[in-house]
């Protein structure tokens, strides 16, 4: 079937099998390799992308469901003038990246959450920030610096 969607600001029309997973559309069809396959069972969050403002596990989401929607992957952050989004900058400044395999997912989850909080005029507590990252696993960092980075997004 044919779906039309916006990905990283660009409108695409694509013929796909109805069983295609969003992660496979992103990685194998569109060849955007920044979205990482950590478990393909919805447990680790490495494949998190943003669909219509919400971070989702792209391994648990059928590609047909993005028809008419807006998808942002890690490649969609930043631009030529500012290659890194603020969330990415904070991750680097706070030492939140070690092997980096979970990082794309951490960044996308944090971006979706902080966009929502900022839009609602909320500054979340550290506990709320921790909770927002609960679906993203990391084996290198012990999360502390990722949480620091996600909190730093709200600091001027």
């Amino acid at each position, binding site marked *: 079937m044919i779906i039309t969607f916006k990905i990283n600001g660009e409108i695409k029309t694509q013929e796909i099998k109805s069983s295609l997973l969003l992660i496979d559309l992103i990685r194998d069809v569109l060849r*955007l*390799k*920044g*979205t*990482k*396959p*950590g*478990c*393909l*069972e919805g*447990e*680790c969050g*490495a494949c998190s992308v943003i669909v219509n403002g919400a971070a989702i596990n792209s391994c648990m989401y059928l590609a047909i469901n993005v028809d008419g929607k807006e998808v942002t*992957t*890690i*490649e969609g*952050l*930043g631009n030529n003038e500012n*290659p*890194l989004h603020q969330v*990415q900058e904070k*991750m*680097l*400044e*706070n*030492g939140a*990246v*070690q*092997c*980096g*395999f*979970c*990082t*794309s997912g951490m*960044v996308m989850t944090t971006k979706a959450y902080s966009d929502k909080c900022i839009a609602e005029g909320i500054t979340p507590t550290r*506990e709320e920030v*921790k*909770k927002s*990252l*609960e*679906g*993203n*696993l*990391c*084996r*290198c*960092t*012990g*999360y*502390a*610096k*990722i*949480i620091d980075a996600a909190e730093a997004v709200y600091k001027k």
Partner: protein
Amino acid sequence: MLLRQFIKNSSNPPLTPPKEGKLPPFGRVGVGQTSNFKTMKKELNIIGKSHQKLDGKERVSGKAVYGHDIELPNMLHGSILRAKYPCAEIISIDTSKALTLEGVECIITANDVDVNNIGYKRDHPILKKGTVNCNRDEIAAVAAQTKEIADKAIQLIEVKYKIKEGVYDPFEALKETAPRINEFGKGAEQFGNKNVAEYFHYEHGNLAEQKAKSKVIVKKRYELPRVTHACMATSNITAEFNNFDGRLTLWSSTQVPFLYQRDIAHALKMEPSKIRVIQPIIGGGFGSKLDMHPFEPICVLLAKKSGKPVQILYSREEEFLASPTRQPMVIDLTTGCDENGKFTFREVEIIKDNGAYTSWGATTPFVMMQSYSSLYQVPACKFDSHAVYTNNPFAGSFRGYGNPQATFSIESNIDLMAEELGMDKREIRLINANYKGEITGQGLHFKTCGAIPALKTVIEKSNYDKIMAAPNTGRYKRGVGLGSMLHVGGGAKIYRSDGCGTTLKLDDYGYLTIVTGSNEIGQGSETVLAMIAMEELGIPKEKIKVINTDTDVKPWDVGVHASRTSFVAGNSLLGAIKLIKEKLNNKASQLLNVKTNEWEYKDGSMLFNGQEIKLDKVAREMHFASPHELCTVNYFYEPPSRFQDKDFKGDVSGNYAFASQAIEVEVDTVTGNVQVLNVHVSQDVGRVLNPIGLQGQMEGGLATGIGYALTEEMIYEKGILKNPSFHGYKMLTSTDMPDVHFYPIETYDEAGPYGSKGAGEAPLIPTAAAIANAVSNALGVRFYSLPITAEKVLRALSEKKLETRNSKQETNKI
């Protein structure tokens, strides 16, 4: 000093530590700053200040290329058929149906290949025939045009088995009546039992004499679970074989590329130099990539047979089923102390579940015996460890390399001895702690030692007194526990060389390329190397490149293990910098007509006595003017450590790391849930190189250590893994992570770059020990096995209640 003298000295270790001064201040703690090592004397601008990860922008933007992201023209996808049963005879393998599936390019079984066994004991066939010995055994492999086709083809391969009764308990495997599990094992000839894969024995001191001196003797059995690395990136490899010249290129996430090159060559009967190993960005290592595993030569065999590049990527389930684990083991530890609490002896017997084949993991006793012999002052020690074949999956190496297991038993026994003696748990540790200048019974020479400062720091910072004094009634009970550790800090001389090579190239534009033998597996080693070059040569970060991923290019290094990379690669780089400075000094002196070697390197320039010349100009003059030289140097660093003798005695590392942790927990006596509230960790790191990187190593190690203590366990039933997913295997999440308070101790050890010591493994080593001691402190019940799950806590509490009730009834009767 000769090895013999070490051993002689070690027979009578001094048993009283020197008097320590006041408690160290908050923050970094400097101890014994008497070294005259020249890099320590000068003021440092870069080292000791936090620097972002060198390639952090690539990693944070999704641009870094991991093994999963590699695509080659005409590349095929491989898939492996594994044994259906953990113990069986293979009657027949029929691949005919699978071969007819459209898109399948080739299938291999053991009958199609001419290969050598692999593994540390060469007891592991790459593809199995005749018998299967564990659930992860590789029976056949398919290369197909897509991963889906390869996976489907695997399902179409028909294998007939004769199921056999397996042996899943190492104690059963040791019985005479047990079947021989691994037909290549040499246990009968070497160790007097057919199912013993490896045996280690160590001893020092007079055990009988020390036992006689002991006021308290504690003998306990500890049981350690099987856990796994759970790297966020699953195992992966891409292989391309060139038929024209017989050369092989591997994109592999090994953490020991030069040993791996040799292992692949041996397995496939190739010349090592025809194998080029390229490391893409590695999505987690932690020791899992120390061994070469069967899927890697299998991928090459598929590439050779199909004539096309082949990629194998594990699914997460396959990662749980078929990647290495930490060694599960049963430790019988007997320890003693005299009436003053001074330790007298340790006697330990360990039975390790080796699984069906032998990996580097079987050599973990090499590290464990160091802790038993030398963590705290121990006048006599006897250590025996048997790794025993079973039909369980084989265990590999994992951050800490046996030390978390050893430390859990040692620190638990220390608490028990203190309780029996009625002594304070802090005091018994402080009076027995290691000290500067000590040469241990095993011959480890602690030229610097932060053990006592680390202990004192965590005791003070954790508010130990306050927690102990607080009332502990009601549903939630709090406790605090201590744990300390000793680990190699300056590499470990276990291979023929423990060295690392560096090539430096300063180009015509003043950019420096560091080609290092060492590897980046996420731990931040290349950032530290760039910092050292910035510090020494005054070149800005933007002008430094680190090349470290290609065995055809980089000089030799033994690999990422033993917390050695910053130490060994840092020293190697400092040696190379010394050489390149000699070249630059000579040229600059000639150009400016001065006689000096005292050039200062700053902001891309060389300065002396008011004169200044740009670094790139010196390099260009070297290149373009007679006698036309390139500004390149090579250096190989071999640490000053020594091989241990046949009795495992000797100073095996360039220096030694010490750490203590004080961990506060809260136990919910209704649910049994243990929550870690605060972790205070103090570690002798020699000198802090990159604070933000070091802190990250601490937090990450602690998270794995807490998981080991409380939540992680691979549940096996008769050789079959019951929880091969992140849902069933409980790693810590962001909400489980406690606050970490880290206090580095700086002892400025002469052997390390700027006085530093290896740090990466240490943070998870004493964690389970400290948590177990804290839970015991909270509840008055001790746990002798990990993980301390809610179920175990509740069972222990109900048993305690029952015991109390029974003893009350007994009292009433009297």
